[in-house]
């Protein structure tokens, strides 16, 4: 891992769809070298995947319901929070899971088709885990910004004059 790898990662983290040829020119390396580096970073799980950020509210498809659930748990001897975390993140519905400092332990982000589906998940799957002490569910009402992208339609016309000194 060298400076070029770090630069490559910082670029693809924000612009995952640039071609390897574009990336190569941007960081001044031969294209096959960039390909090699990317494959290595993928193999080593430094790059875990590539995805698109979709604003489902603009589509025909019903927008998924998202909730953040604050979970208090009892850590297990020897494995701390990892054991219960693993039991939670393996669920397909769980989009994100973080261990937090502060008044609760785990923050679970879950996505479902409806509120009742999420409620069912919390009552049937999450709360019933032995080490879970309590849960507090917060439903997301509106997505303003996610992963660095603003989801509200702003006037994105270039305000600059077409030609200037």
């Amino acid at each position: 891992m060298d400076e070029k790898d770090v630069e490559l990662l910082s670029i693809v983290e924000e612009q995952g769809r640039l071609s390897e040829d574009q990336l190569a020119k941007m960081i001044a390396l031969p294209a096959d070298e960039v390909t090699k580096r990317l494959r290595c970073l993928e193999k080593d799980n430094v790059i875990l995947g590539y995805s698109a950020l979709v604003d489902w509210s603009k589509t025909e498809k019903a927008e998924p319901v998202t909730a953040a659930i604050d979970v208090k748990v009892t850590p297990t001897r020897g494995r701390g929070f990892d054991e219960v975390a693993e039991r939670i993140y393996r669920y397909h519905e769980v989009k994100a899971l973080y261990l937090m400092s502060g008044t609760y332990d785990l923050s679970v982000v879950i996505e479902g088709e409806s509120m009742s589906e999420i409620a069912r998940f919390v009552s049937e799957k999450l709360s019933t885990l032995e080490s879970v002490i309590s849960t507090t569910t917060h439903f997301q009402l509106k997505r303003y910004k996610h992963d660095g992208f603003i989801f509200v339609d702003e006037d994105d016309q270039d305000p600059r004059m077409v030609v200037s000194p």
Partner: protein
Amino acid sequence: MKTANTTHQPKLSQAVNSIEPSGIRRFFDLAASMDNIISLGVGEPDYSTPWNVREASIHSLERGLTAYTANAGLPELRKSISRYLLERFQLEYDAGNEVVVTVGASEGIDLALRSIVDPGDEVLVVEPCFVSYAPLVSLAGGTPVSVPTSIEADFMVEPDLLAEKVTDKTKAVMLSFPNNPTGAVMDNETMQRVAEVCIDHDLIVISDEIYAELSYDCDHQSVPILPGMHERTILISGFSKSFAMTGWRIGYVCAPPIYTEAMLKIHQYGMMCASTMAQYAALEALENGKDVMEEMIISYRQRRNYFVESLKESGLECHTPGGAFYAFPSIKKTGLTSAEFAEKLLIEERVAVVPGSVFGEGGEGHVRCSYAASMAQLEEATERIGRFVAKYLSGDVESR
């Protein structure tokens, strides 16, 4: 009461009659009349001003800070500029009497020239350069004398040529590196030799370093830092490019007190002070905007690398621009003049670039392309330029 037979005879000054409107203007009118163009003709960042800077300015308005400031600018802003120049470029300017906050670098250039030029004085203008230098020399009553640079010397000033242009009327030299439109930077050795010429002939140097931060391959070396140069240099800079603040109209000049006091006289009567809300914004930019600036610099560098390589692949010769956000490829082998190239490219491929000829001597044969555009735009633009160039190289065009 209206009297019928009074007629007004327009009377413009000779000075204003002697200068032409900027050549960019005509090209702007043409480009602005067309839809769906990809513009590489823009001389400003593609970012909005960082939010914390905008927010600080809004906050200053909420607090009611809407009065005039000191002529030279808010004391805390001048202190901040002085600290910043020391930290970033090792320059020593006293916030008390060596810094004047101006309405953009543009006003700074005007102040510098008007405070030193007498009728008959010659000012050497290193070209190609920003379009305002020569006209402002003329408006100040002086005579601009072009010192051309060329792609053969990577658009750096050639010290011997500079010396050749000096006459007993020469009073000053206008330099600007990193350069608009060439993107050129000066290497330390050449800069040193240029400094020696200026010292030998006891010239004043007006150094427009507005692109100093946007220097991609090495640290920017500021002109006044060279031995013997501080006392003779008027340093022009500002916030437009590095902090993406073009519309705020805020910049500054730094110089020894003899020069700042002279410039302050003109500024005091002609401008009073720079806009107060812009001054609060500038203060926030210097105090808390540097991280965002660094991110913009990294992104410009990556786009520079991408764009220049792609231009070369499209068949154009291009030196590697070390700074600013412009590439200045040679279009000579297409057989077109730079104005023809820009016009045909605009009409045939809907890509706007600026003819090099508008930037003075040495600009003909080149076009200025700004890479302050998105990667997608740059990709599409270079593809179109490639197609265009191929067409003219193969002679596969209707006879003109």
